[in-house]
């Protein structure tokens, strides 16, 4: 069965702190996607990771991919309130172009 597991599912943190969201998956596709969803809004693509060791950074967010461990991380550096959102990881299913979604991590950053 294809699975994508995120943890933690909920994270409350103070501004200025660092933290990491983890995404484990069981597919063999090894293409991984991170999305952001603000409350009441749709999903916005953040990162697409296509190969082992891939690292992408945008502002205070950095995503990496370890295909051997089937693990991706989303690291938040010196968090600010504007990063409060729900973050989803997803992997694709080679056979039918679908994405398999994690449960999402709700991130609340307190001033």
């Amino acid at each position: 069965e294809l699975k994508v597991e995120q943890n933690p599912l909920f994270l409350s943190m103070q501004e200025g702190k660092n933290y990491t969201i983890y995404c484990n998956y069981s597919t063999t596709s090894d293409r991984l996607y991170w999305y952001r969803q603000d409350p009441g809004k749709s999903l916005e693509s953040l990162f697409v990771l296509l190969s082992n060791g891939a690292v992408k950074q945008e502002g205070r967010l950095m995503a990496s991919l370890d295909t051997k461990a089937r693990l991706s991380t989303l690291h938040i550096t010196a968090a600010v309130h504007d990063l409060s959102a729900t973050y989803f990881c997803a992997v694709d299913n080679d056979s039918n172009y679908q994405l398999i979604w994690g449960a999402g991590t709700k991130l609340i950053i307190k001033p």
Partner: protein
Amino acid sequence: SAVISQKPSRDICQRGTSLTIQCQVDSQVTMMFWYRQQPGQSLTLIATANQGSEATYESGFVIDKFPISRPNLTFSTLTVSNMSPEDSSIYLCSVSTLGTGTYEQYFGPGTRLTVT
């Protein structure tokens, strides 16, 4: 990337009625997907809609309840039929261009449906 619009953005409907949601893309795309998202939950795929073929439905979703049309490469509709309060949810359409060598999806703004 692709710019996607959905209509309506929200609606309140009575049980037993039907609602058709429209999804319009600003460019031609191969793959279109319809999802449902309950508050605080992840995305659940309803069906994949490819132009020129019947939609492919996921387990738990049937064509009679969620008929889908895909008349061309820029447009699709999802109908929620004979609605019940359990159908209250956010409905999202997404597209995948496939041209970049990934299956990255781009999402519409969503339709928030409340069934009373």
